[in-house]
């Protein structure tokens, strides 16, 4: 019985979290991407993604975010993937309610919002990291998929709670 409950719990957790992040690896880089459909206006999703002071409240994958998410600004971020490390990231591109690019010396993360109609917005987040030295440090990278799935699930949960 206990086994059955454990299986059911795992199934329910799986259902509540997006499970579609994928990583493609090549010699000099790796690309991780996740996509999720959110029943909310892009304005709400955009606001969540660009309000630095509120970020850690809804996003369980980010433990610290300092600075302002504005074009040209630099932010300092800590992720659950490596809580000892502070990522210093520049906001490189911002197209309100459509797309945004963050980046540092090792790679870039692109956020895309796409209106699908009927109040649905598709959120896609893609991170490409790499470079000539990538083969030397690739083995130290943790798997990103679960983190990306959680990020997308948290965003969906919060945006839909606000919208509905």
């Amino acid at each position, binding site marked *: 019985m206990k086994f059955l409950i454990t299986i059911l719990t795992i199934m329910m957790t799986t259902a509540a979290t997006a499970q579609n992040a994928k990583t493609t690896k090549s010699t000099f880089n790796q690309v991780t991407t996740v996509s999720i459909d959110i029943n909310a*206006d892009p*304005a*709400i999703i955009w*606001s969540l993604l660009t*309000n630095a002071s*509120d970020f850690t409240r809804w996003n369980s994958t980010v433990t610290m975010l300092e600075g302002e998410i504005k074009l040209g600004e630099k932010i300092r971020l800590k992720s659950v993937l490596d809580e000892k490390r502070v990522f210093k990231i520049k906001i490189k591109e911002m197209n309100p309610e459509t797309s945004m690019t963050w980046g540092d010396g090792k790679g870039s993360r692109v956020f895309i919002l796409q209106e699908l109609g009927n109040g649905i917005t598709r959120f896609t987040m893609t991170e490409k990291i790499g470079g000539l030295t990538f083969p030397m440090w690739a083995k130290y990278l943790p798997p990103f998929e679960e983190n990306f799935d959680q990020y997308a699930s948290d965003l969906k949960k919060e945006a839909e*709670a606000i919208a509905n």
Partner: protein
Amino acid sequence: MDANQLLQEFESFKGQLKSYILRITTSVHDTEDILQETYIKAQEKLHTFKGESSLKTWVFAIGSNLAKDFLRAKKRWPENVTDICKDAALNNQEFFKESMGIRMTSPQGNFEIKEHVAFCFTCVSRSLPLEQQLVIFLKEVYHFQNKEIADIIDNTEAMVKYYLNEGRSKMVEVFDHRCSLINKKGVCHQCTELNGIYNPKQNAQEEIVKIKMAREAEKASKEELFKLRMKILEELDPFESGASELQLHHLEHNRGVMEKYLEKD
């Protein structure tokens, strides 16, 4: 719609508009000016009112814009505004002399804990980004619909929902952390301390249990307690209550203290 109809309708919601502007600006003097200017602007622009929203919504939009213009260049207050102002008051004998004078002589000089709860929220809500502060008051205290609020703040309904959620979440957490009426570990006891000064013969605990938010503190969720806090504001007119003169005096004090504090900052 003619000028007479405008005057009649304006009078019907003037009290709400006035208290709304006060709660946004925290300035008694500027509230009077903004209220008057709102009416003048509404008269001047009456020909542009097409009835797409209610007149009340349209006039609140004018008042909100004027309040926003007034606040735009001003810094937002910190969450611990009441701590900063308490320290300043303790070092200002004149403030207590004036306050006691009002308490002893004014028909609107009573001190009531629930009045102070409303006063406290007014001050702390100035720590929210301006749009969030406006939306919280418009929705939670004056009960406008999201569509009407979108018209008032000239934004989309989606953003109204976002601001509401943000503002609520922040205020829920701030008061859960600070307010000893709802959390035994709350760091702020200012309302009961002041009750001891202004109503020395009163038992503060007996007064606290008269407030539903305090009675429900142990069993209700943080969000429900926030709703009950908003109910207190909704039921009080800061210009007409039996405690209004004393509370407005305190509000002016806090505004003055914060202006100096933020100048230095």
